[in-house]
């Protein structure tokens, strides 16, 4: 989640020897107070390093590898599996794909083996449930427990992060390591780095989606809709609870 301030200073001195902290903050779009606070605490966040690396035009994964705890990131990077790619297609894009595959007299389904014609682009990453979908796609069934054990955090804290579509970068790397997938893939689904920065092939999500059999696509979409329904029901219940509280005690 963070690197020691001293290591950050050394890295910054190597990458941008002539720039002051103020200039670095300005070009990276970081508040000076934010960086100052991180330096005082002695821990600089990954997002700060990523922002600076982007501003300096550096390879983001290579920049992270300049720190001891992330030095194996480039070697551990790998193209995402088909399951990972599909997990990063949003619910609405799955539904759109299903609709676009429905044949009609004007638009009959293509013959088996060919791809389905489409004139729309997938929503950008990450989507509303990127983290949960990725964890479910890559993991063995006990992945969450193993992440919590490996990272020595309470399982409830991990669940809270996943529910909020967040995952600390260190946990994302731990998850990828346990699941045996590319180490940078978790950073993509959490929005820490982009899929381009992680070296994903352009259009790979679209290709994976197009290659997915319709039956599997519909089954996946049904599962996603069920999860969405659960989330909406929970939100409705929360709203009703808050409304009752305000009505009686507000």
């Amino acid at each position, binding site marked *: 989640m963070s690197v020691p301030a001293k290591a950050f200073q050394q890295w910054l001195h190597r990458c941008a020897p002539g720039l002051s902290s103020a200039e670095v903050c300005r070009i990276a779009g970081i508040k000076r107070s934010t960086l100052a606070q991180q330096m005082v605490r002695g821990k600089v966040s990954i997002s700060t390093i990523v922002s600076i690396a982007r501003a300096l035009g550096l390879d983001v994964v290579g920049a992270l590898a300049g720190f001891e705890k992330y030095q194996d990131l480039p070697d551990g990077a790998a193209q995402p599996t088909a399951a990972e790619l599909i997990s990063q297609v*949003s*619910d*609405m894009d799955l539904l759109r794909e299903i609709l676009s595959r429905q044949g009609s007299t004007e638009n009959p389904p293509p013959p088996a083996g060919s791809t389905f014609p489409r004139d729309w682009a997938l*929503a950008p990453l990450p*989507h*509303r449930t990127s983290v949960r979908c990725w964890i479910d796609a890559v993991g063995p069934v006990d992945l969450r427990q193993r992440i919590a054990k490996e990272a020595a955090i309470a399982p409830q804290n991990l669940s809270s992060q996943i529910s909020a579509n967040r995952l600390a970068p260190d946990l994302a790397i731990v998850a990828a390591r346990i699941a045996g997938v590319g180490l940078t893939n978790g950073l993509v689904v959490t929005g820490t780095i982009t899929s381009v920065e992680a070296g994903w092939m352009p259009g790979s999500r679209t290709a994976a989606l197009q290659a997915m059999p319709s039956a599997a696509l519909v089954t996946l979409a049904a599962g996603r809709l069920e999860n*969405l329904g659960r*989330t*909406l029901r929970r*939100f*409705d219940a*929360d*709203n*009703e*609870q*808050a*409304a*009752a*509280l*305000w*009505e*009686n*005690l*507000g």
Partner: protein
Amino acid sequence: MSTVLQWMALAVSLACAGWRLPAAVKGRNTSLFWMFVLLTVAVGLSIPAIYLTVDGWLGGVNVANLLIRFSLYAIFFILASKMAAAHRSRRSQWLIRGPVGLAALGLVAAATLVFFVISDLPVSNTGLAGYSEQWSVQGYAVAGRLYPAYAAAVLVGPTAAAARTAARAINRASAALLCLAFIMVVLATLAQISTLPLKPFIDVMSYGSIVCVAAGLALVWASFRGRPHAPPVKRPAAQ
């Protein structure tokens, strides 16, 4: 310590009544305003200087103490009814406003009145401390504790559940404060009527519960003021 707590609780009660006044004038949750007015009366009358003066006006035979008791019953009935509805606990609503709850309130009120009438209380005495050797006064004291403890015990469950599950942190915090207040009311009663080693903390728990209820309701009000207009919680977009 006790005197400071008493005056602090009186100030909090009075402030709360003043705070609820504008909403009451607009017709919003007027019972909460009257609850705080009654709380101010009850807390004020527990302070010797105020008690002796007011009881003097009422004939000097400790009717003011009876006024405290019935104010407390009304306060706990209003608060418990509102809390049970606010936390959507049907069981709690039934236990307060249903036949069981009303019977409990009626019995305790009747017992309080009977114990008061048969006691010999010729001279004003704050908290009836000077008459505590009379069995009827002891019964009167126990009866006075029973209904508040019953109502508070009914509310511990719903507020504890809300403290764990409410979506907003501010609502969880308010539920936790209210839950703490009700636990303190129950413990204060247990301390009075049992041999548990809690007697030194009775005052702290009694007045602390008032402060916690006020703080919990203040947080609900802050949450109400800061609510989004519609819907209360932003629904996640079906992305």
